[in-house]
């Protein structure tokens, strides 16, 4: 699930950049062609409208799995503000423990809950850009067509920001990468193979 998500998300981001280039929101920002997916807007749109199904179906399965098995409640909640501050303190003093990678610290919990919510909103703003008339009620929530475009752009920026931090930190703790490739350590009933 994680890797299907990663691949479809990279396609969505890369093709999104190519689509963005056709009518930029910020005059100073164009994405160089070598880092985009799809040839021209027509190619990029094809990729975007292909990968969106992969991302959505995979994402819905993930959410259903997370809620049904109680994984979200067990792994991502509760997030206590006190623990959050303690974790940040530990991190700043380079004392963060990585002995048990199956247990998320408060910062991780917050970021993972955050990124899930951001991706859900990103899918919604994507629908609002795609169908501003058929889904005019949704479009109105994002303050119309240009508002939806901007929201979709900001969502992309947040996801890319998360991605950079997420990958950098995973590389700092190499054993997490092994766990992500093999399905992770077996922890009794808590065996998680996503």
């Amino acid at each position, binding site marked *: 699930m994680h*890797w299907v998500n*990663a*691949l479809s998300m*990279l*396609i969505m981001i*890369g093709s999104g950049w*190519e*689509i*963005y280039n*056709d*009518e930029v*929101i910020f005059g100073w920002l164009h994405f160089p*062609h*070598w*880092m*985009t*997916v*799809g*040839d*021209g*807007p*027509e*190619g990029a*749109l*094809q*990729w975007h*409208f*292909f990968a969106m*199904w992969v991302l959505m179906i995979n994402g819905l399965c993930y959410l259903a799995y997370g809620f049904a098995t109680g994984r979200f409640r067990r792994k991502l909640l509760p997030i206590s503000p006190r623990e959050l501050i303690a974790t940040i303190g530990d991190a700043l003093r380079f004392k963060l423990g990585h002995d048990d990678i199956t247990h998320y610290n408060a910062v991780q919990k917050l970021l993972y809950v955050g990124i899930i919510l951001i991706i859900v909103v990103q899918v919604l703003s994507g629908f609002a850009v*795609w*169908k*501003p*008339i*058929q*889904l*005019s009620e949704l479009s109105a929530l994002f303050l119309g*067509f*240009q508002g939806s*475009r901007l929201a979709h752009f900001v969502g992309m920026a947040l996801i890319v920001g998360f991605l950079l931090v997420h990958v950098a930190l995973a590389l700092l703790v190499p054993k997490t990468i092994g766990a992500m490739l093999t399905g992770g350590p077996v922890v009794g009933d808590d065996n998680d193979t996503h």
Partner: protein
Amino acid sequence: MSIKAPSSSIFRPKGGIDQSVLAEHKALLADINRRNILRGAVSLGALTMLTGCSVTRTEPVQAVLKAMSQFNDKVQALLFRPDHLAPTYREDQVVKPPRFNAYYDIEDIVPVDAASWKLELSGLIQDKRAWTAPQIYALPEQEWIIRHICVEGWDYIGQWSDVNLRHFLERIGADLTAKYVSFKCADDYYGSIDMATALHPQTILATKYAREPITDPFGFPLRLRTATKLGFKNPKWITSMEVTNTYPGGYFEDRGFNWFSGI
């Protein structure tokens, strides 16, 4: 790879092939295969970022993307709400003149001569007589102040008026159960829409913008304006209309853009 018959090249060795060479290459081949599989698995993610190379252009990939685009046509037809009206706007919000866009520059427009212009009709239509501009002007007029959204991402509010397309199709005895309404233009542009969109209340054959005749760059004398499609689905300088069950495609659609392109 096809197997070629031995050539009569002078470089072809006369004697048999040394078996030790074959054994050596066999091992090499096995190694290369294993490496390729590993590399393929690992670089799947990286490949998606390398768009400069041929990955996105190879035929099987294109076939999948095309099939997906056709699937998305069907999804969009399901999402389409025939009676759901697009938001309309106030007259003071109308942008004048409208924003120009075509596959060529505004200087390259060849104006249409209204005196000799006719709208030709063909396909599943009972009364196929051609229409002149004055005949169309005499039809009941309808006005919509609606948002024009381009596939590129820009938009503006425009004020379009003349005959409602459903009204016109009924008047000429078109088969309203047909799948497509297709248009050809005075330039070599062409396009088509689904019947459900053609019958939507906010789909009109427009001759006026902001209560004045449409000017040359924007489709004089006749263009399509539908509130539920992207800009390029609204052909300008229309010279003929056909009602058909055969997929007609379109100028940009045949170059890879999604056909339904509803908004």
